[in-house]
């Protein structure tokens, strides 16, 4: 770069002419949000300072309070230090998309069409679409779009099962039939961006990496408050929590919406995974968390914030409720399994993992004490607990607001708060009914 050019560059970088009124407003609003963010941390720290002082009066509950604060703040801190690796043009392994679908006539076309639009050498792409006993027009949609895709020079196979076998069977079938190095699972209601693949694949240049999770946002975010809430929740779950886990390569769940795996490693465990049993019952849900678990036992799982995908989330409370119950159950099962080997990982990662297990398991006890037992005994509203919870969620909400821009973030957070309280019993209930797999169907 010539000195002249460098000077010009610098000038444009620091040009004040560009700052218009709207820019000032934008800067002020971001500044205000950051201020709010740290102000909430400050309030939380104040409260915790008092808690530390009273730690003797109730060791368990005070410890819970301190650990959860440390855990959450450490997530934000770690995610701040998270770094993704640069894209290497010379590393371009062949890939296979696997999409099992059941009754997805509305979305499957778009899902598959997007595979043909990615920035990647077409001859290195293979698509395996599995129609898992759909009773609607899914198969027809698949066949229609497969013609389009094939015309672009992409190798696509449509497998048609007349009788439904379940998502796990479909994924396993995909693994077995795939011929390429990297297998990318995409849910039949998820859509990937053009650059998604290159940012997923770049991590596999490191042989230790077995799985990569994309960043998934909510596609139907603006439908109602429930989907807005999930929009905020997804964003934070990926940008903060997965990023924090990813620092140590121990992302505990590469979600089914869009995640890539190294086929070489998958084929070693695919049969074990397919026939996985827990407490004598065959596992039929939580396939993604389970598959990640099999991989991180030996290899690394990371998160790629630049690999973007979008997924459709439940837009009614009933669907949301069932999905949550399913997730809670698979969380209980897979966390139990992961507990047996997570201690071998990076000490900080292991500490985070076990802290989270402790927190999740204690949360309903703490909730019961704060919201039912104490108010019953003292005849006082559980204001401290509920506002503390809201404060914690507000922290997430402000972060979401800062990173994504103007959104109904406050309502989303209120609704998340409400749903957390409403569904707090789901985890203990999931533990009690862990052997009951009826929730497994969607």
């Amino acid at each position, binding site marked *: 770069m010539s000195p002249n050019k460098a000077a010009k560059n610098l000038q444009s970088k620091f040009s004040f002419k560009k700052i218009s009124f709207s820019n000032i407003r934008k800067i002020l609003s971001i500044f205000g949000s950051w201020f709010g963010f740290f102000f909430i941390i400050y309030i939380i720290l104040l409260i915790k*300072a008092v808690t530390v002082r*009273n730690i003797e009066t109730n060791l368990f509950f005070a410890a819970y309070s301190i650990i959860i604060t440390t855990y959450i703040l450490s997530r934000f801190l770690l995610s*701040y230090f*998270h770094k993704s690796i640069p894209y290497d043009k010379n590393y371009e392994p062949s890939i296979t998309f696997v999409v099992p679908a059941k009754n997805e006539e509305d979305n499957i076309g778009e899902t598959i069409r997007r595979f043909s639009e990615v920035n990647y050498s077409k001859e290195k792409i293979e698509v395996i679409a599995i129609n898992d006993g759909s009773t609607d027009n899914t198969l027809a949609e698949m066949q229609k779009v497969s013609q389009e895709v094939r015309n672009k020079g992409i190798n696509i196979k449509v497998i048609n099962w007349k009788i439904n076998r379940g998502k796990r069977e479909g994924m396993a079938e995909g693994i077995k039939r795939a011929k390429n190095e990297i297998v990318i699972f995409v849910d039949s209601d998820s859509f990937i961006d053009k650059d998604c693949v290159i940012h997923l694949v770049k991590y596999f240049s490191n042989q230790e990496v077995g799985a990569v999770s994309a960043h998934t946002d909510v596609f139907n975010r603006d439908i109602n408050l429930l989907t807005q809430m999930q929009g905020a929740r997804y964003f934070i779950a990926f940008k903060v929590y997965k990023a924090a886990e990813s620092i140590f390569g121990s992302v505990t769940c590469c979600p089914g919406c869009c995640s890539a795996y190294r086929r070489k490693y998958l084929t070693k465990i695919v049969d074990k995974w397919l026939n996985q049993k827990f407490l004598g019952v065959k596992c039929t849900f939580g396939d993604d968390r389970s598959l990640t678990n099999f991989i991180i036992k030996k290899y690394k799982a*990371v998160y790629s914030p630049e690999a973007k995908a979008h997924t459709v989330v439940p837009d009614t409370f009933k669907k949301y409720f069932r999905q949550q119950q399913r997730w809670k159950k698979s969380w209980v099962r897979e966390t139990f399994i992961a507990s047996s080997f997570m201690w071998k990982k990076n000490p900080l990662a292991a500490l985070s993992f076990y802290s989270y297990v402790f927190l999740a398991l204690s949360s309903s006890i703490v909730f019961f004490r704060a919201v039912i037992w104490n108010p019953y005994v003292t005849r006082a509203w559980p204001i401290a607990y509920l506002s503390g919870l809201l404060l914690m969620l507000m922290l997430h909400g402000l972060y979401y607001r800062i990173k994504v821009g103007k959104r109904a973030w406050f309502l989303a957070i209120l609704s998340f708060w409400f749903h957390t309280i409403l569904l707090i019993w789901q985890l203990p209930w999931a533990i009690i009914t862990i052997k009951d797999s009826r929730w497994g169907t969607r």
Partner: protein
Amino acid sequence: MYADISLNKIMQILSLTIILSLSVILTLNLEIGYVSNANLFSSLIKNNYEYLKYKSDISNGGNAFLVTGLFSIFKNDVGEDSSTETANLVPVLLYHGILDKSDGENVLLKDFKEQMFALKRNGWNTITLEELHGFINEGKKLPDKSFLLTFDDGRKDSYYPVDPILKALDYNAVIFVITKYSLTQSSKYYLDKNELKEMLKSGRWEIQSHTKEGHTFYVIDQTGTKGHFYSDRLWLSDRNRLETEEEFTSRITKDFQESKSELEKYLDTKVISFAYPFGDYGQNSVNYSNATKVVLKTIAPIYQMTFYQAWGEYSQNSPNNKILVKRIEVDKDWNAQKLLEVINSGREKDITYTDNFEQDSGWVTRWGETLIDNNKLQIKSTEFSSGALVFLDGTQHWTNYQFNAEVHAIKGESITLVANYKDELNYDSCVFSTKYVKIEQIINGTKKILVLRKGASTFIGATRELGISTNNNQLSCSIGNTIIVKSKPPYTVKSSGGIGFKIWDPILNNSEIEIKNISVEPITL
């Protein structure tokens, strides 16, 4: 590791952490006293900062600060070398709150600090309750210049300003708390349970009982007069009568017991002592003449030591095996010098003693008025008294001595030289009057005339050398070098106690004497 651990990011997080923790600490600091539970970090920091400051003050006379404070932690050469002598008397000091700004009642922090520093520099060291109990009741020895430091009421401002000073001087203290306020509720004024636990943990504080309910005033008659919880029978308005003696006894017993058991339960510490609210163990009762007897009888099985403020008495404690322990309440107007004088004048005096009243060596006025001025001790009655009684502090251990005084009579009927003074109800005396000389013994308040000889022995306007002599066998009175009267053997005195003066006249405010000098010589038998 997929992490960007650049210096830039680390510095950002570091500065954010510093800003956040500083804000938290500052906020909590501002809220000391307002949010009772919120002052952990700030008080820790403040406490240690002040400790270093005091530590450097005591080691360097206040010239250097902090840096030397840091070094002085490792030195322990503060104060005089304690002597090998053992204590005969032990003073107990009483404070309440220690303030930055005067409220007209409590001692200021700058005075308190100077007082403690002066005590330390003069070789005084604190003891624990157990050590004091050993001294008073079990005949155990204590090093000379031992004292007990106490605070009443359990106020926050007895702890926060004081603790760094204790730490710097290696002192410890006792705080008497009101359990009703300190254990059951949180306030910005009284120490709470957590603070008390912290204090116990430091090892510098002993937490004892001041009362549970008895720190407020209660109605004691139909007209609504207010009195003291432990010394007056309360008015039961619903039954329109005073409580019975049984009710009084069970009420105070309950409070003595509950305040003790609550402290022991909540703080897991041993409670062996009690400080009477207002220093009143019944002696100030308005409507119950038996109060003192009942209180002392009731409290004895519950506490080993009970503290009160001693006014017009010997100010320090001797190994007398009594349950009542005297305290010197430090006045807000005393500076360090004054406190040292007060303590020194209460210390045991050598029995070979002369006093020409250049300064006050510890003359205590029980009633009437005294003034030490122009190398004279003036004693007067007041408009409310027919006489006066003064005695010399620090003489309670004297036995077998001859006490002479050069007395100038100004007005009044009689001039009395007091010997073997224990308290106003127990002493021996020679009464010199315009009509007679007599030897009078006061035992538990009852007068007993041993010898009386008629004839004038004092004259208004004249100066005479009067004397009293006491030994194991005999009391005698003298004028000049002549013995006027003697108690008759085989009556034995077998007594110990100090010296004093008493004057009397049948008319109020009509007696006055001046004493130019006195001398005391031991009598060897």
